[in-house]
C-alpha cells in the first residue's frame, strides 16, 4: 500500500520534473560566463544580461514589444469589456454569431490567422508598421478579455444593478458606480492576458513586422536561425519572469474574486 503510493508519487514527481526542468535550465544557462552554450556553466555571472542591456539590437525590439503590448491592452480591454457587457443580452442567433467570431482566434490555427492578416495588411501597406502589430494582436487578445469579463458578469448579482436603477441612478451612473467596480478584477485579468498574448506572439509578427516593427520574439527567432548564444537565454529568463509575474497576478486576482 505504502509502496504503491510511493511509486505513484515518484511517477508524478518525474513528470513534474519534465515540466519544470527545461525552464530551470534556461534560467541557469543565462547566468553562465561561457561564450558558448554549455551545461553546467563553468562559471556564473551576469555577462549575458550585460550583453542584452548594452545592445541596441535587443533593446529596440524590447521597446517595440512593450509599446505594442501596452497599446493592445488599451484597445482590447476597451472593446472587449464593452462587448462582454452586451453579448449575453443579444438575441440568440446574434449571440451565436458574436461569440463564434470573438472566440474564433483561439481555435483557428495560428498560421491561418497570420497569413490571412498578412494577405490583407500587405495590400494596404501596413507591413512593418508598429500600428499594424497593434491592430492584429488586438484581435488575438480580445477573446481573453471577453471570456474573463463575461465570467465576472456571470457572478454578478443582478439585484444590485436593479436596486441602483430603482433608487434613481441613471444607467450610466449604475455602470460606473455599481457594475464596473464589481467586475474590475475580471477586467484586470483580461488586460493582463491581453498584454501577455501580444508580448509573446510570434507567428503574426513573422509575417507583418517587416523591418520596421521587429518585436522581441521576432528578434529572438531571427537570432536562433544563426546561433544559440546565451544572450537569448538571458532574454528568455527576463520574459519568463515578466510573464510569470503577470500571470501569477492574474491567477491571484481571479482566485480572490471567486472566494
Amino acid at each position: 500500500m505504502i509502496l504503491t503510493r510511493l511509486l505513484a508519487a515518484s511517477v508524478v514527481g518525474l513528470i513534474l520534473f519534465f515540466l519544470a526542468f527545461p525552464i530551470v535550465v534556461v534560467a541557469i544557462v543565462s547566468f553562465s560566463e561561457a561564450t558558448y552554450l554549455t551545461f553546467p556553466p563553468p562559471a556564473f555571472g551576469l555577462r549575458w544580461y550585460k550583453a542584452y542591456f548594452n545592445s541596441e539590437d535587443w533593446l529596440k525590439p524590447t521597446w517595440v514589444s512593450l509599446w505594442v503590448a501596452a497599446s493592445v491592452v488599451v484597445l482590447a480591454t476597451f472593446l472587449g469589456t464593452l462587448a462582454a457587457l452586451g453579448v449575453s443580452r443579444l438575441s440568440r442567433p446574434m449571440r451565436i454569431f458574436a461569440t463564434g467570431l470573438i472566440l474564433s482566434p483561439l481555435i483557428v490555427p495560428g498560421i491561418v490567422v497570420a497569413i490571412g492578416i498578412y494577405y490583407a495588411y500587405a495590400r494596404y501597406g501596413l507591413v512593418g508598421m508598429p500600428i499594424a502589430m497593434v491592430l492584429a494582436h488586438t484581435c488575438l487578445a480580445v477573446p481573453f478579455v471577453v471570456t474573463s469579463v463575461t465570467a465576472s458578469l456571470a457572478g454578478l448579482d443582478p439585484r444590485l444593478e436593479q436596486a441602483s436603477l430603482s433608487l434613481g441612478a441613471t444607467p450610466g451612473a449604475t455602470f460606473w458606480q455599481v457594475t464596473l467596480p464589481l467586475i474590475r478584477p475580471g477586467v484586470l485579468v483580461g488586460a493582463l492576458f491581453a498584454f501577455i498574448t501580444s508580448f509573446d506572439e510570434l507567428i503574426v509578427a513573422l509575417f507583418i513586422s517587416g523591418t520596421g516593427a521587429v518585436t522581441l520574439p521576432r528578434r529572438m527567432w531571427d537570432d536562433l536561425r544563426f546561433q544559440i548564444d546565451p544572450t537569448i537565454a538571458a532574454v528568455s529568463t527576463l520574459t519568463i519572469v515578466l510573464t510569470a509575474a503577470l500571470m501569477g497576478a492574474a491567477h491571484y486576482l481571479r482566485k480572490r474574486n471567486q472566494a
Partner: protein
Amino acid sequence: MSEITQPSPVAVSLGAVRPLLLNWRRHVPLLLVAPLLIYMLVLYALPVLAMLLRSLNDPTWTLSHYAALFEDVVFAKTFWITFNTSITVTLGCLILGYPVAMGLVRAKTMAPFILVIILLPFWTSVLVRSYAWMVLLGRHGLVNEGLIALGMIDRPIRILNTPLATQIAMIHILLPYMILPIANALRQIDPSLIRAASGLGATPFMTFRQVILPLSMSGVAAGTLLTFVLALGFYITPAMVGGPRDITLSMLIAQQVDQLNWGYAATLSAVLLATALAILAAARHLPGVGNAFKTSMR
C-alpha cells in the same frame, strides 16, 4: 414595469417619444458589441476569408487547387506527418497528463506547489520553451552529456532536428492543456462514490477502473480533443527543433506564402482549418466537453 400604476403627467406627455426610447434601449446590447464585431470583421475575419478565397479564384474561379491535392505527394506526406505527430503528442500528453491530474486533485498541502509547476511552463511562451529544448537536446546539450556520463552512448547522438525532438517539445508545451480539463473532471467526482466503492470491498485499482476512470472520461475527451486540435496547427516548435524534412502543414503553408503561391497556401489553410473545425464540431456533442473546453480556454 409601471403599467399598473397611474401614469404621471410627464410620462403621458412623453408618450409619443416612448416607443422610440424603448426601441433604442432594446438595441443597447447590439450597440455595445458592434464596435468589436466590426473591428474583428475588418481586421481579422474578412482578411482571413479573403485569403481563403484565393483557393477558389486563383487565377480564375476553379476547384482545381482542391482537385490537385488528391495527386499531390508533398501534401499527402505533410498531412500524414502533421496528423501522425498530433496523434503521438496527444497520446503522450494523455499518458503523462492523467497521473499528474490525479496527483493534483489528491494532493492537499502540495497542491499549490504542483499547480505552479504545471502553470509555469503554461505561462512561458512557445518560443522560449522550444528554445529550452534546443538547449537540452543539442549535440552538446544536457541530454547528450548525461547519456554519455551514464555510459549509455559513446558519442553525442542526433536528437535535435529529428521528429523525436518535435514530439518531446510539443508534449511539454501541450501537457497543461491535457492536465487541466482532466483535473477539472476528477474534482467533480463525488468523494462518497469512492468511499462507497472501497467500503464495498473494491481494491484501489478496481475503484480506479470502475469508478474514477469512467467518471473522468469527459475531462479526458476534452483534453484529448483540445490537445489534438492545437497540435495540428503547430508551427514554431517543429520549425525550430524538428527535422529539416519533417514539414508540418503549417510549415508548408508558410513556405508557400514565402514563394507567393497564394492559391496553394490558401487551399492548404482551408484544409487545416476545416480539419480543426470538423474535430471540434464532432466534439461538441460529447457530454461534458463543452463545459471543460470553456474552463480550459480561460
